[in-house]
């Protein structure tokens, strides 16, 4: 049951992404509306899948890569829908939904078997730590989408190619604003995730911080975004610089999430 819901969600995301792509090429109001309906419907199916999986497994379905990638994708869609409503910028979807779709694709490649919960993860902290972390990741993913559009628009302007796609994408200020809002949304969440992780580590492993690769890379991610936020608030790092850092931050974050799990053995390597 939950497996078929996974593929239904995947299918709806695929359709929504296609709609957003068509909208990017030819911005008709109906296409935008349809895309919005699809992505919202996809999210509903996704939430249902996660709940079902929760009852089937008896714990938050976030303990292997199949589950956590799917959960990440769901968080990206949820945060995207929030920002899309807020800024009323449909083309943002053309750059964010592919990320969610890609995450689903990768998730589907990992085995979906429900294995008994690792005893170390049996804790109320599991929900808090992971949900907060993924919401933070998701807002960085939306910031990444906005940053990519920003860099495109910047380039169009500098090269004075201001017809065609340039006309259909939002203004620099709007994109920069989305970038900033995502940052102020995601950074506190990332901070809470790290702190809650440390507390949990203390109860589970007896030490707050053990320089496990996941912990180290989380800290690196945190520093990248902290630097961006600091630069913004003090010396007015905005625009291109902020966009580039948002892109870098996103890849560092992806490495923290995926690379560490797959490549580096450590306490956090749940596959």
């Amino acid at each position, binding site marked *: 049951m939950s497996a078929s819901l996974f593929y239904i969600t995947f299918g709806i995301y695929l359709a929504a992404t296609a709609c957003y792509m068509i909208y990017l090429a030819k911005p008709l109001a109906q296409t935008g509306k349809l895309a919005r309906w699809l992505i919202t419907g996809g999210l509903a199916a996704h939430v249902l899948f996660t709940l079902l999986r929760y009852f089937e497994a008896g714990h938050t379905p976030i303990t292997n890569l199949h589950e956590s990638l799917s959960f990440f994708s769901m968080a990206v869609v949820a945060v995207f829908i929030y920002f899309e409503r807020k800024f009323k910028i449909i083309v943002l979807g053309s750059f964010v939904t592919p990320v969610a779709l890609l995450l689903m694709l990768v998730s589907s490649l990992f085995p979906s078997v429900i294995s008994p919960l690792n005893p170390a993860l049996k804790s109320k902290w599991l929900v808090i730590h992971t949900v907060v972390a993924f919401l933070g990741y998701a807002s960085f993913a939306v910031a990444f989408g906005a940053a990519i559009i920003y860099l495109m628009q910047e380039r169009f302007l*500098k090269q004075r190619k*201001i*017809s065609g796609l340039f*006309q259909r994408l939002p*203004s*620099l*200020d709007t994109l920069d604003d989305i970038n900033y809002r995502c940052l102020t949304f995601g950074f506190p969440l990332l901070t809470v995730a790290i702190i809650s992780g440390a507390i949990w580590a203390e109860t589970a492993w007896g030490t707050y911080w053990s320089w496990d690769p996941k912990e180290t890379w989380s800290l690196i991610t945190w520093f990248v975004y902290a630097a961006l936020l600091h630069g913004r608030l003090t010396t007015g*790092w*905005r625009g291109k610089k902020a966009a580039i850092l948002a892109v870098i931050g996103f890849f560092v974050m992806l490495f923290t999430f995926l690379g560490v799990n797959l490549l580096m053995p450590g306490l956090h390597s749940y596959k």
Partner: protein
Amino acid sequence: MNIVVVGLSHKTANVEVREKLAFSPTQMEKPLNALLALDGITEGVIVSTCNRVEIYVTTRDIAGGIARVKRFLADYHNFPLDTLENHIYAHHGEDAIRHVFRVASSLDSMVVGEPQILGQIKTSYGYAAEYKSSGIILNRFLHKAFSVAKRVRTETKIASSAVSVAFAAVELARKIFNDLSDKTVMLIGAGEMCELAAKHFLNNGVRGLMVTNRTFERAEKLADEFSGTAVRFENLFDQLHKADIILSSTGAPHTIIGAGDLGEVMSRRRQKPMFFIDIAIPRDIDPAVNDVDNVYLFTVDDLQEVVASNLQQRKEEACKAEDIVSEEIGQFFKWLSSLEVTPTIVALRNKFDEIRRAELEKTLAGWKDMPPDGQKRLEALTNAIMNKLLHPPTTLIKQAGQGGRTDLYVDAVRALYGLEIGRGQDEELELEE
């Protein structure tokens, strides 16, 4: 009833002719009354803009109507009629409807897609409605023209892109800043295009304007005009960080702002974007300025290129708009011709009845030994024959009316039975043409 359009536009007359024939928009009562006083003209609307003077009337007599309106236009402005003939066009029937729909949709404008014309026609119609010179047909006609124009505007991109340099600059600024209401424009130097662009920015809601000039008095004068603030030229770099959009057109032989000048300016602005528009030749602003982060430099040539590509796009969109116009003509023509159906049927019936009565009277008058119920029975007989004969043509015309192709049948029936509704003149006109 026919809709007739008589007029001249930028396509047929130069500005000297147009201004001699223009009507003052504030004094429309007199010409509208004079127009309605013309023989055979039942409704009239006068549209007068700087690019066109057009008169829309309804009349039964197309050829006569056109001639009278032309003479009216010449006489009213004391303009020689034979010269006027060289500049004037006249349309009737479907062509007249197409013409007005195209004008309202800005397909006939000098700059295709410019938005003012619709408002101008609406104002002109407003006067006609106020002085009651437009009636059932022109009311419906112009409302239809407005809705066609609206359809064209929403369904095509004919008016969606800037086709003047000043507008292109404003649009570009919106792509950088999104919201202009908290932005400040700085004018460096003076010049027609610079001031025009500044005006556009002010109309689009920028917060403030600063003006600087080597001659401070000129800066003050211009600042007064736009209710902005004047800045001494020596203080340019102390004030530059306050400006978001800079329009520069000095006559300086060398550049006045270089990339090196902007480092400090940008840090004082905390890296907020700046948009430079260099209107001067030779350039006022070093092209390297464009390489500074968050600074965007455009020259007039760049903007002109945008305008040229937008104009091309408008041309393509105009084809779509023409299709919409054609579609709507059919619908309106259907309504217009349905106006003819009922009177034609009534006339046909009256004609038949007239013949029936005349013949009946003749028969009754000479019939000596008529039975007592003879007259009654003859009445019934002739009535029945008449109704049977009338039934097929009546049904056919009515059905044709619903399908919009009445003109053919209505004309045929009128010609066949010599019905007098005053369409006899139409044939003459067609022969003339």
